């Protein structure tokens, strides 16, 4: 790989002054790195809001009965918590922040294929968020749950229109990012970087982008149809006019199941980057990881029915969906096997990104195995719509996307900001968060098996003990998250300055760029001769 030279005239993208100054220089910048950071800051704000809503719900559940809030407020809270966390945080999540920032750097490009479209994606995303939030002022918060199930979504007295329109608008943003990444990966890889010399994070972004392009239009049309149903009464999902609400569920999950792979695949890519670097070993089974990513993206399209085992489907369809659900677990298990094998006999570098990565594998495995409990027909009937589902979902999505997001930001932070975070506070934050996470969600498995239904603001006294446990866990977890976030935000301004190009000893291209990178990343585009992760 080529050695790029450093000279004093290099100006980092953070200090670069273009046509506009100050804030305008950010919100009108087409630089992929600035767009990535715009997404990061937006998500930071909305994650704090949605996490606060989550904490308030847990505090309500501390004791049975009407304590903090009533049923309508509770419904609105879990709906808005869900809409923000799903559509604003985890779906765009890693691709929008780290994909934008690091995809061009990792494949040796100067920017993404369509930089202006990339900036437009962020604008569309922000407009979508504002439309969703406007429901606060026109007709009250939505109360349908983030799934907008028919027929309730066009019968509820509160105004669901802004939430539907906003979610559709954010879908456009997701599609445009997907198109941008596919074209970038096809057309802009550095000389010598063949498909199988590409690092694994870009590979998972590629698989994710295909899901974004091929699945998101389905949710777009589904939400638009719900909108028309509510405003015009076309009858498509309305049983009073001959429509079929089960068809809504099918269309919704045809998108929303592949969407969980939009959430988790880039996270798997990040873990595949971090494990070899901190084990000082080549990744075990590079091609198996690549192919399993593509397999997850492909098989993930055909398992949507497992969300509807109790909704009413033919027996044959139930068996098929259950079987396919078991099938999609295999490529995920292949990845876990490869990560663990990579660590085997490696010389482990025990640093914060590695802690997050290893704890990712742990919570992801629990989430995955409980997913099989839900995927098998006999057990699903018993735990459907209980806290078991809530626990499984948070282990996979928060445990998967959240932990890999934390791993990614602690891994790439010095490259992004040219400063180092406080390592001991980062580790304290991780321990607190991890302990809080486990004590928050593990009791939910037990509660679910005992029959506690999800989305209820109240419960029977026999569930009280586990709820107290869970609420205390949530307070601990929020404390951990606060330590991590405050440490990172403080360090991005006051952390120790560094211009070291490669603090972790990574072998992928982004570590050859300046720290922080310059406007167009490279003086001269590097030529690639080796596979990634070649440790000797």
């Amino acid at each position, binding site marked *: 790989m080529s050695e790029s030279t450093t000279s004093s*005239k290099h*100006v980092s993208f953070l*200090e*670069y*002054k*273009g046509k506009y100054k100050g804030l305008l220089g950010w919100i009108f910048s087409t630089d992929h790195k600035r767009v990535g950071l715009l997404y990061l800051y937006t998500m930071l704000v909305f994650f704090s809001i949605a996490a606060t809503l989550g904490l308030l719900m847990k505090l309500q559940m501390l004791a049975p009965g009407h304590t903090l809030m009533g049923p309508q407020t509770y419904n609105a809270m879990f709906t808005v918590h869900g809409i923000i966390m799903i559509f604003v945080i985890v779906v765009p999540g890693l691709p929008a922040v780290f994909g934008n920032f690091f995809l061009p750097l990792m494949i040796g490009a*100067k*920017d993404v*294929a*369509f930089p202006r*479209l990339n900036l437009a994606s962020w604008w569309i995303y922000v407009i979508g968020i504002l439309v969703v939030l406007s429901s606060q002022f026109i007709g009250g918060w939505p109360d349908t749950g983030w799934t907008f199930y028919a027929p309730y979504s066009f019968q509820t007295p509160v105004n669901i229109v802004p939430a539907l329109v906003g979610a559709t608008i954010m879908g456009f943003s997701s*599609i445009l990012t*997907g*198109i*941008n990444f*596919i*074209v970038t990966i*096809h*057309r*802009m890889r550095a000389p010598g970087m063949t498909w199988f010399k590409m690092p694994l994070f870009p590979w998972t972004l590629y698989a994710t982008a295909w899901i974004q*392009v*091929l*699945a*998101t*239009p*389905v949710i*777009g*049309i*589904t939400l638009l*149809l719900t909108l*028309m149903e509510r405003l*015009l*009464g*076309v*009858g*498509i999902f309305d049983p009073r*006019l*001959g*429509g*079929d609400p089960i*068809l809504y569920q099918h*269309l919704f999950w*045809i998108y929303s199941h592949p969407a969980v792979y939009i959430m988790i695949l880039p996270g798997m890519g990040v873990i595949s980057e971090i494990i070899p670097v901190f084990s000082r070993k080549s990744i075990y089974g590079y091609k198996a990881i690549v192919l399993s990513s593509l397999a997850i993206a492909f098989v993930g399209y055909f398992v949507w029915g497992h969300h509807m085992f109790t909704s009413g489907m033919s027996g044959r369809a139930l068996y098929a969906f259950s079987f396919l659900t078991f099938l999609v677990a295999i490529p995920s298990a292949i990845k876990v096997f490869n990560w663990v094998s990579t660590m085997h006999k490696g010389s482990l570098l025990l640093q914060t990104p590695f802690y997050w990565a290893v704890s990712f594998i742990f919570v992801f495995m629990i989430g995955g195995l409980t997913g099989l409990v839900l995927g098998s027909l006999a057990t699903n009937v018993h735990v459907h719509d209980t806290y078991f589902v809530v626990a499984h979902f948070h282990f996979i999505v928060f445990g998967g996307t959240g932990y890999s997001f934390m791993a990614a930001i602690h891994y790439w932070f010095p490259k992004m900001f040219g400063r180092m975070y406080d390592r001991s506070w980062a580790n304290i934050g991780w321990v607190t968060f991890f302990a809080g996470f486990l004590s928050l969600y593990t009791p939910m498995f037990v509660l679910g098996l005992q029959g506690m239904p999800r989305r209820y603001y109240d419960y029977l006294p026999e569930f009280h003990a586990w709820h107290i446990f869970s609420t205390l866990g949530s307070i601990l977890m929020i404390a951990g998250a606060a330590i991590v976030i405050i440490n990172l935000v403080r360090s991005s301004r006051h952390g120790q300055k560094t211009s070291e190009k490669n603090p972790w000893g990574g072998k992928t291209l982004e570590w050859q760029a300046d720290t922080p990178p*310059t*406007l*167009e990343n490279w003086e001269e585009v590097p030529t690639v001769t080796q596979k990634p992760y070649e440790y000797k």
Partner: protein
Amino acid sequence: MEKNAEHTSHVHRDDEADKLGMWLFIFTELLLFGMLFLMYAVYRYRNPVAFQLGGEEIDVVIGVINTVILLISSATVAMSITAIQRGKKTQALLFLGTTLIIAVVFLVNKYFEWGTKIEYGFYPGGEALLELGHGTVLFFGLYYIMSGIHALHIIIGIGLFIYVFQQIRAEKIHKTDYVWLENTGLYWHLVDLIWIFLFPLFYLIH
């Protein structure tokens, strides 16, 4: 500004990438309409008689006219691309202008077609429609949704044609740089292709 004077912005042009991006966008459109066709299939299977009777209510003459002119417009936009490749600006503008006019005529026809039905109370929530039972409500619901979303694509197409027309006149699109026109043409062929499926499903099958 002085600080970064040595950074001259690098102009990156890749027509292949632009076309690849357009094709991916077309995939998303196919998925979007694909779900509507899926719904049509489900509801037609469940309400065969109502869908047959509904189809007889729809004006075949206007449908045929719109199909023919839309096919012609697909040809004229392709001819416009060939003209620009040969450097014949006036010819390209002429063909593009024809396409634009046809798109407007298509919408005018649609206006009369819908107008007549709405007059008789055949619209979602209309009393005349609700009296005819569930199957017919679904048939006309799908008819308005699918041809309505298609008409929205025609309107977007008109916007694109106006933009591209201006760009050709201003010599921004010319013999060696015409990917905008080409992508607009691709989009228009998609709009045409979707109509080719909508037309038999609503106007011809009885």
